[in-house]
């Protein structure tokens, strides 16, 4: 019923050739509905970042297809349908905060006044109004990541791809940014695909958690996280929250017993 924004079918990814062949992903099937918040979680090296980059057309699958917004992933990238946030903020030292947020808008050639207005609005969204003229090195790690998020949202992408964006931050900043991200998600209605190492973070943020196996990565199960929205500090005390965390953890441990192959996300 809800639109499927990302459709991954039968995707394999193999790195290298000949004797050095490394299969990273095997037979990935995944469907992500519009407006969902989907976390990819799995052991180190399971290919979750690779899957994210495949969706974003930063690398190509060895087999299978990826459809984004009804087009090929390649087309979607050229049409700028998605924004990316990495673990490192990757801000440019030589631009102010506002300049950094305007970067994607410059690439898509918006005029100067429109750019500035949009950048300021995005900075307001991440609650960094007043910092427009500062330089990245003057900001804390958490603030730099917020700038990166503002930048990723500046051209209103349909999808936000986030690769462990809060991994380098301390626990308290992380929890705060989790809440901020959820607020932004609700406000913009963007579909978010989120890679993380942290089981509690995955459960807290997501509508669905895709549990992956060790290399070669397969999707073991997509768990629908049925916790009430909006999520907040009370959610962290909820018994069902701990229940889901346990479920994800058990799934991760019992990965040999996991079902490979098709995993569909039920309309929630």
């Amino acid at each position, binding site marked *: 019923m809800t639109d499927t924004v990302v459709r991954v079918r039968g995707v394999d990814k193999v790195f290298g050739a000949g004797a050095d062949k490394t299969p990273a992903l095997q037979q990935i099937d995944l469907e992500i509905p519009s407006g969902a918040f989907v976390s990819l979680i799995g052991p180190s090296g399971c290919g979750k970042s690779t899957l994210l980059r495949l969706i*974003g057309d*930063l690398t190509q699958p060895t087999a299978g297809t990826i459809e984004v917004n009804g087009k090929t992933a390649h087309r979607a*990238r*050229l*049409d*700028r349908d*998605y*924004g*990316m946030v*990495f673990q*490192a903020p*990757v801000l*440019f*030292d*030589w*631009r102010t905060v506002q300049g950094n947020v305007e*970067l*994607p808008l*410059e*690439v*898509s050639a918006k005029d100067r006044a429109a750019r500035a207005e949009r950048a300021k609005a995005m900075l307001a969204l991440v609650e960094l109004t007043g910092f427009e003229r500062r*330089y990245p*090195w*003057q900001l804390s790690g958490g603030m730099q990541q917020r700038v990166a998020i503002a930048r990723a949202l500046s051209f209103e992408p349909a999808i936000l791809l986030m690769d462990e964006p809060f991994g380098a931050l301390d626990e308290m900043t992380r929890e705060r940014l989790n809440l901020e991200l959820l607020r932004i998600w609700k406000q913009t209605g963007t579909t978010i695909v989120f890679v993380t190492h942290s089981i509690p973070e995955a459960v807290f943020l997501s509508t669905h958690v895709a549990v992956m196996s060790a290399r070669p990565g397969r999707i073991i199960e997509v768990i629908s996280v049925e916790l009430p929205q909006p999520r907040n500090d009370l959610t962290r005390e909820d018994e069902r929250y701990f229940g889901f965390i346990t479920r994800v953890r058990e799934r991760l441990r019992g990965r040999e017993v996991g079902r490979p192959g098709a995993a569909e996300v039920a309309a929630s």
Partner: protein
Amino acid sequence: MTKRFAYYFPAVAVFVGVLGLWELAVRVLGIQQFLLPPPSSIASAFVEHFDELMTVGRNTLVEAVGGLVIGGVAALVVAFAIARWATASRALLPFAIAANSVPIIAFAPIMNNWFGILNPLSKMMVVAILVFFPIMINTLRGLTLVDPASLELMRSYAASEIAIFAKVRVPNALPYIFTAFKVSATLSLIGAIVAEYFGGSRSVLGQFIITEAAFFRFANAWAAIVVASAVSIAFFLIIVAIERVAIPWHASARIADSS
């Protein structure tokens, strides 16, 4: 305020101390005045020949700046041109580094022959070759040694190669370019003076020093050396000032790091 004072004090103390000791040693110990004249006689020589020193200094500075401009512009153009082709830059870089090991100064006589011994251009060309390779190598490095994450970011925006070049590679290269120019500033002046040694117009610093030394007027020679050094330092500081204005984010970032 006191912190700045404490920071600069040792260097200043050394300067004053050495000058004082030098003066004392020459007078008291009667060290051969003609080889290493006391600071007082250098100072008076400086005042006495002020006009001539300024003239020769300016002429040499013109050679140095001219050479820096010619060599610098050529180096920037070549580096920008080569940076687009990754394979070419990787192949040419070691060659450029090897070419940098050639004693460029050996070309001074050739340049005199090509452009005319009295023509300042012959000295400028020596300087130009001298600074070409350091500037080209550093600019090329700045254009190619870009954080891969930044490149991926731009690819995620489907940015064209030209956009990536203008928005990422060039700003990234600016600190490298300024470093190269700071080094080249000093190099250019010394190169001009050494090139002058192989002959040319009389009214340049190099020839002035040689002439005065040949007539055993060492106080004059040392005064000229001081002028050469001062001009060199001033040239360097001018580029530092330009750097502060052109890339404030880099210079201040460095200050923030070191504090």
